């Protein structure tokens, strides 16, 4: 798994290269569109997400209600746009949080030989817990809020990143320029950030994309089960949970949010796959 790849800076136009591949090109465009839709939700949503209209409950998709209405007559399309905001920002926060924890653990294990065994064992132990199950237990202990879901999923995914960072750090640690920096008396924190971290940026970016995709699926699962974010807040997962009760009469309530998850996760995977090919040629054949 260990692979040291070219630093990001020497890859001019990474976005251009992603766009040059049909798969990641499509993926990237889809992601930008979804992100824009989420960002601009207050302006493009035709209705307020919580606006009730009992007279129009469970209406199938029409021109007035593109994706139909739910059990309380709320516009499914508008709610999906707002749900995208929650689902995407929670997943993104998970990526940031797990990256910070994962980088600290990975750098520590990879750079300081004495700490390698204890930290790696801890990472092994964390990896033994299935993601959703550990997240459920953590949310149960911490309480079902968006912040706690982020923390729980962040803790769940951090070990994966820690492994990748450790593997790359182990290789970089032995490179001549790190040795030279050490001989020159450069303080260790500076070496870690300027020389090591910079060079493990690519695998972190690749892994981060996949964590993003997994976090969307996991958050949806938690919300669907009712053990994640409060059911009152629209997320794609909570919308499916509501739609489930009306599956026979109003399939659209759960169809559209589910499709949104599939499209978003697929787009992320397409981009992640290409990123891996472009940045980590030696990783490309794994998984």
């Amino acid at each position, binding site marked *: 798994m260990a692979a040291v790849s070219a630093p990001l800076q020497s890859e001019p136009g990474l976005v251009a290269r992603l766009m040059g591949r049909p*798969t990641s090109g499509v993926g990237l465009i889809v992601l930008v569109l979804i992100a824009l839709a989420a960002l601009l939700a207050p302006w493009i949503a035709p209705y307020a997400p919580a606006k009730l209209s009992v007279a129009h409950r469970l209406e199938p998709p029409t021109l007035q209600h593109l994706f139909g209405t739910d059990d309380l007559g709320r516009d499914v399309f508008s709610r999906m746009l707002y749900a995208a905001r929650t689902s995407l920002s929670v997943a993104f926060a998970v990526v940031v949080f797990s990256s910070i924890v994962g980088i600290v653990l990975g750098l520590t294990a990879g750079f300081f030989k004495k700490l390698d065994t204890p930290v790696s*064992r*801890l990472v*092994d*132990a*964390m990896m*033994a*817990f*299935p*993601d*959703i*199950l*550990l997240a*459920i*237990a*953590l*949310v*149960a*202990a*911490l*309480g079902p809020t968006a912040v706690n879901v982020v923390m729980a999923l962040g803790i769940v995914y951090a070990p994966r990143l820690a492994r990748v960072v450790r593997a790359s750090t182990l290789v970089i640690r032995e490179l001549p320029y790190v040795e030279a920096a050490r001989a020159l008396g450069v303080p260790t924190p500076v070496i870690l950030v300027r020389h090591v971290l910079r060079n493990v940026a690519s695998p972190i970016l690749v892994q981060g994309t996949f964590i993003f*995709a997994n976090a969307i*699926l996991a958050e*949806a*699962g938690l919300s*669907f*089960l*009712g*053990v994640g974010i409060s059911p009152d807040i629209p997320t794609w997962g909570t919308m*499916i949970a509501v739609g*489930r009760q009306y*599956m*026979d009469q109003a*399939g659209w309530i*759960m169809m559209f949010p*589910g499709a949104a*998850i*599939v*499209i978003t*996760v*697929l787009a992320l*995977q*397409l981009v992640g*796959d290409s990123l891996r090919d472009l940045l980590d040629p030696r990783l490309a*054949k*794994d*998984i």
Partner: protein
Amino acid sequence: MLRSILNRLFGMIAVMALVVTIVFVIVRVTPGDPAAVMLGPDATAADVAALRSRLGLDQPMVVQFGRYVLGVVQGDFGQSIFLNQPVTTALAQRAEPTFFLTVFSLLIATVIALPVGILSAYKRGSAFDQAATTLAMFAASVPSFWLGLLFIQFFAVKLGWFDTSGYGGPGASFLERLNHLVLPALALGLVSSALITRFARASMLDVLNDDYVRTARSKGMSEWRVVLKHALKNALIPILTVIGLTAALLISGAVVTETVFGLPGVGSLVVSAVLRRDYPVIQGALLVIAGLYVLVNFAIDMLYLAIDPRVRY
């Protein structure tokens, strides 16, 4: 050899000890008093105090941890708060649906993924390869619970081929239970086939470029013998690894899928335990499942050691 086994054994025990510690700590990170949280806002102070002493929460942390470890070592995971039975009994009663769901999902995933992955690698870059790779990625993007709901809607409600939920009554025959497992196993198996497909393809690609495959070809051996006998044999170890690990991951998927299909397994037990704040049950389930994962990993390591003489730990 013995040294490698002992090394691995020691590592496994260390990881197990950490797993137990993590499971112990998880409940202690609860803001406030776990006993008060478990009993809800209507509980009286006396009730809370009683539960605290029943769970040993009034003891110093070190004593609590010592007791917990001692119990776990003896197979005692504590008492469920709401079910009024030992956690081990509750888990054992719910093990069957989860076990069969995991086994059938794994079977479905493997039956799909193995041939597709092998053919994909063999015809690298072909239309088949591209279609299979894209399809695998698509499968990995579908939430299993959503796919389950679609299956229920189509196969159970519209076509009426299967029951919409449950596991049959207590006296249901095995065949009837099997009928209840078809849709959940299919939903979970299809989603899980993605990972195995990609791994099978990658391992075969690795092997197909090796010297002995070229030698076998140059000896004039038939193509299918080269691929299935020489290449597959060597690619099988990493593939078996990922199948083993998928089995452990499937349990995670089972948590959600069981809830969708109303299967009375470990997954739905955990979800109801979370909703009722029944911490001992959550801890017990986590412990058993993580323990299984560590054991599977250890078994795979030993398998490597037995099969490949180059491997040393």
